[in-house]
């Protein structure tokens, strides 16, 4: 009997203005029924392309080589009629980004029912919703009325509509917070176990795959660099890329991942203080209390991590600390003085405290060269001295060497890590005493996360820079922070030294958060 899915020498090329781009090269994979295959790899390595090629859903600009055998039948040579019959009835897809994969103007129930009608299945929408643990009434909803996790589950219900033998799930949990992610993964694992379907699970997050997959394939630049049983691959990666991927997800509590020596934690004088800080947003839907009475202190030379799920108010806190938003109540003290209100005063304040934004790509004006971006602050503050020398110095501190060679480069010519360094260099050029970094590595590939974190630690060591690191990733906090503050729905529920908070959580929410973190170790 032939395997459920077999890829033989699959290659995909995209025709673009720049010529042909090889997105997938010579991929061989096999999946048996009832098995789960994980496909890992950083963004852009070709995971989705592989997924789409299975049902021949690639855009017209794609050229496919090799064979794609679905139950022994080659998809690439099927007639359109046959292909349409195979689609969804034999194999279905849970698309990346359920947000866009659902038709926004039709009820989700209709969308689930559509393939049933088309392929003559007898499943009932309410049963399908039940399988993904959604109430039947949700069938009457429009996509925009559902949360991200619910939409993702609708996609899964839709994928199951015609009892397919193969389901391909393309990053089904990206953009979900850890707690919802755990729910969705639970549903998928249960279905594989109960119904014996074959599942291809795609993710860039090794820890997600570790908990669900039997086998794991790691991709890089369109090719597979390592393949084997999931446990083995994660426990003893042979390829350096796999190793970098694994390292990017530190295990909380494992001292091996801790990069700050406990003795480094020293007595320090308070630099920035927030007292009973509250921030409201007044919007169409009424008032949102984003931050509610937060007390937070950062000492000089200290690294504090602010953790919490998406939407808990982390970014808002950071913005308020920098005076980008006026607090609704409470105050921010810098060296014991309240933040100035005047434009001039704020400008002075911002020479002392700098912010590194979440996404380095969008934090740089795509039209400005590295030199212009770094010199921007110098020009605004009319910093005396040789501008070029100052820029070069800042770049060098941010480990971009030789600095001169980066001067004329535009952001899109840089890698993500390099971009983040340019942003940091722009902040450093002003010689700040405190760096507020909002999710400094969230959008970066696994391989460059470590470098940026090392840079931050190095800066603290060499320049005595204090830092507030904002993240939703507890592992990150574990690896570099001195102290941790946990935020939940605008409230700081717990704060204290890293070991104490993460190893011995007091608050119930912190415990839930820790429990939901997928781990690479069983």
């Amino acid at each position: 009997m032939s395997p459920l899915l077999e890829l033989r020498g699959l290659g995909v090329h995209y025709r673009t203005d720049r010529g042909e781009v090889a997105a997938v090269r010579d991929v061989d994979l096999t999946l048996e029924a009832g098995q789960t295959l994980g496909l890992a790899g950083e963004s852009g390595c070709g995971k989705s392309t592989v997924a789409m090629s299975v049902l021949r859903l690639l855009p017209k600009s794609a050229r496919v080589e090799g064979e794609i055998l679905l139950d022994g039948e080659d998809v690439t040579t099927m007639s359109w009629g046959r292909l349409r019959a195979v689609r969804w009835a034999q194999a279905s897809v849970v698309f990346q980004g359920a947000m866009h994969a659902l038709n926004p103007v039709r009820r989700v129930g209709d969308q689930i029912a559509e393939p049933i009608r088309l392929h003559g299945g007898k499943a009932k929408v309410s049963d399908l919703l039940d399988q993904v643990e959604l109430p039947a009434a949700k069938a009457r909803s429009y996509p925009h009325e559902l949360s991200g996790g619910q939409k993702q589950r609708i996609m899964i219900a839709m994928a199951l509509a015609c009892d397919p033998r193969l389901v391909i799930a393309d990053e089904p949990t990206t953009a979900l917070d850890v707690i919802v992610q755990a729910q969705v993964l639970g549903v998928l694992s249960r279905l594989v176990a109960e119904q014996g379907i074959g599942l291809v699970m795609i993710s860039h997050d090794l820890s997600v795959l570790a908990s669900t997959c039997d086998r794991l394939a790691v991709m890089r630049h369109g090719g597979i660099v390592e393949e084997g049983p999931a446990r083995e691959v994660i426990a003893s990666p042979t390829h350096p890329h796999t190793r970098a991927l694994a390292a990017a997800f530190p295990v909380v509590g494992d001292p091996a991942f801790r990069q700050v020596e406990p003795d480094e934690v020293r007595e320090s004088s308070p630099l920035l203080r927030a007292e009973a800080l509250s921030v409201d947003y007044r919007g169409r839907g009424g008032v949102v209390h984003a931050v509610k009475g937060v007390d937070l202190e950062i000492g000089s030379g200290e690294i504090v991590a602010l953790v919490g799920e998406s939407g808990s108010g982390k970014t808002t806190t950071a913005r308020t600390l920098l005076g980008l938003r006026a607090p609704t109540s409470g105050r921010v003290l810098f060296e014991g003085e309240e933040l100035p209100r005047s434009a001039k005063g704020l400008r002075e304040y911002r020479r002392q405290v700098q912010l590194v934004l979440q996404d380095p790509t969008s934090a740089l004006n795509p039209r400005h060269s590295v030199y212009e971006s770094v010199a921007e602050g110098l020009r605004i503050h009319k910093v005396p001295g040789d501008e070029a020398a100052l820029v070069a110095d800042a770049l060098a501190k941010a480990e971009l060497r030789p600095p001169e060679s980066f001067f004329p480069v535009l952001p899109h010519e840089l890698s993500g890590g390099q971009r983040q360094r340019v942003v940091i260099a722009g902040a450093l050029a002003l010689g700040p005493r405190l760096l507020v970094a909002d999710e400094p590595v969230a959008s970066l590939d696994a391989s460059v996360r470590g470098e940026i974190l090392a840079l931050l630690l190095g800066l603290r060591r060499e320049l005595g820079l204090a830092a507030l690191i904002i993240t939703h990733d507890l592992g990150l906090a574990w690896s570099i922070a001195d102290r941790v503050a946990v935020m939940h729905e605008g409230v700081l529920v717990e704060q204290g030294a890293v070991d104490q908070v993460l190893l011995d959580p007091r608050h119930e929410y912190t415990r839930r958060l820790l429990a939901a973190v997928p781990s690479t170790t069983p």
Partner: protein
Amino acid sequence: MTSIVWQRRRAAVGSTWREFTRNRGGLAGLVVLGVVVVLALLAPLVTDASGLDVTKAAGQRWQSPSAEFWFGTDHTGRSVLLLTWWGSRISLLIGLTATVLSVAIGTLVGVTAAHFGGWLSAGLMWVTNFFLVLPSLVLAIALSTVLPRGIGTIVLAIGVTSWASTARLVRAQTLSVEARPFIERAKVLGGGHVHVIGRHVLPAVLPLVFVNTTLTVANAIVAEATLSFLGLGDPSMVSWGSMLRAANLHGAVSQRAWWFLLPPGLGVVVIVLAFTLVGRALETVLNPRLRGDR
């Protein structure tokens, strides 16, 4: 340092140009525009303006095209070729100046409304929406009826009534630029309004404004022709619109004087089409949103 910047700009312009030249429609439009503009500029040098004077009309009335009068003559015996040629000057002049006025107002309002927010923005947006909804030609008609006749009035009437779509576009673009984190970064670095608008917003918005300009010119030229046709133009100037008005008034249709009807109308169509094609081509080249899905 600056030399590198300039070099890069030049390279960017070069690549935009290469991208543009790949669009055949846009290129054709540009060539046509170039020819027409050169012809319009050359008119006083190559032709004799006295032929526009009815008292010195060279031909008989309503002569059909002949070797002497390639496009025939009008109701006063003037050469239609000459009139069309000179008419292009007024049509282009009004089209361009009205556009400059319209785009200037639109950009100013759009950037201001997006950048400053608050009641100023709300007020400006209300005015913009009001002008957007108001049928602009009707307002332009009203304006040019009550103001003294002349080029200035037409330019004003078209400019003042047609800026709203530019303003909305610019506002949307400014908002989307200002929502980008690099604006926040500029503020964190200490930049004020002038810095943010001058260094970040305008450079990002201007290409779009430029695209919008070419499309607005097309509209302005049609608007000029329409206003002149309705008798609101400058009566002492020959423009394509006023030629068509004369054709309508003096019975070109009943005389089947196609030679008097075709040249000015085709002039408008060709110019407007050329501007539109160039504008659409530029749009695909310069508008990042459209470039992606090619």
